């Protein structure tokens, strides 16, 4: 089911917004104009990912070498600093088994939306989550 959760311009690039939708607490991120939504709950002990610091992704081919890219796309849980990929919800240290739930997020025009609890303007653009 689709939920309109925010006006697209309410989340600046690099920014994040915590919303409630479908009974869930969800954090919506804007990565350079693309929107991504994750359950705002670390799979470890339930820490709020929305309160974590963001950084890039670092990996290494050999000790002393740091390959660093995707700045701003990794969030670290504020409780125990586990890293999660904002695009996928997957952890960096064990992406296959440790992940937080990801929800499809799109930007849609107000004229096609029928929102129940959110006032939309036909000329506006909105972040829509499919939950």
């Amino acid at each position, binding site marked *: 089911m689709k939920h309109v959760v925010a006006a697209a311009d309410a989340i600046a690039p690099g920014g994040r917004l915590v919303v409630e939708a479908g009974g869930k607490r969800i954090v919506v991120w804007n990565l350079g104009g693309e929107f991504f939504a994750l359950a705002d709950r670390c799979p470890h002990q339930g820490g709020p990912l929305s309160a974590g610091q963001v*950084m890039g992704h*670092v*990996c*290494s*081919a*050999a*000790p*002393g*070498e*740091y*390959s660093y890219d995707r700045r701003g796309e990794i969030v*670290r849980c504020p409780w*125990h*600093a*586990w*890293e999660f990929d904002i695009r996928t919800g997957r*952890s*960096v*240290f*064990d992406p296959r088994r440790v992940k937080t739930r990801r929800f499809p997020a799109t930007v849609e025009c107000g004229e096609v939306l029928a929102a129940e609890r959110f006032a939309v303007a036909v000329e506006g653009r909105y972040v829509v989550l499919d939950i």
Partner: protein
Amino acid sequence: MRPFAGAVDADLHPRVPGLDALRPHLEPFWADSIAQRGLEGFETQSYPPGAPRSMRADWHPGDLPAMQRWLDETGAAIGVLNPLYGVQLIFNADMNRAFTAALNDWVAAEYLAVEPRLRASIVLPNEPDHAVAEIERLAPDRRFVQAMRLVMGELPHGRRTHWPVYAALEKHGLPLCLHAGSMHRHPPTSLGWVSWYMEDVAAQQQAFQSALASLITEGVFVQFPTLRVVLAESGVSWLPAFLWRLTKTWKGVRFEIPWQAEPPTETVRRHVKLTAQPYDVPDAESARWLAHLGRDDMLLWASDWPHWNYEGGPAIPPGVDPEKFLRGNAAALYRLAERVSA
């Protein structure tokens, strides 16, 4: 009774009877320096000669005939010597190199040449270039099956300063053995100098933990993927709890060491062995402890003769594969079959 017939005893200690024993193996300048400098010997506070931990009273004098009787008694087919004469404590790097080489040559002449059941660790000089040279000098002698350092050194064992040594060990397929003991460059605890011998003994375990953490975090096993490390006389019960903490922390701060792409526990399982004397896991907990360890190829039987850790009797922990524990793990690690036939 030969309870360990055919076994590999991975930790035996030859006793240097005195500095004069090394004299024939020293270059003339260093041989004369014994008198010129008034050197009296290199026994260390890690193993005070009078302490029961250093030598059980009933095994005195701890010389080669006594060791041979011990091998006869246990039935061990192979024994690995870890000399603990404190040459590592010498500050002068050249003097340290000279007396360390003399110690290795004394072991070869007085033990390896006399008793074919024996193998030995190359005791490493402190300076990396000296250590590399000593490895290159002795590695062709297949009776030297690993290289040994004291667990409490000058710098943490993972630091890149040591890497030429690890490259040389990997090149020759020799494990690095870290044995309990200290160079006394630092207090034996991170709290400072302690008052009593028992504190020093108990502190060794902390040093092994820190050494292991250093080797992993600095990326030694990433850089040297075939290097194996033997923790000797480390005790073993601490390992799972320590690895749990290290791995738990790694999940949060692995970005500091991105070369460590797998949980540290996995790295340790692949690269680290422990001599099982002292084996400080209660029998009732042994099977659970081994399950935490997750592998049956990490423990090497050792008597630690003539230290007090061994009390005799069949000390095979419940839950281990006896053949691997007594012989197979060490035979594979030290490539003993290959070395005998070579």
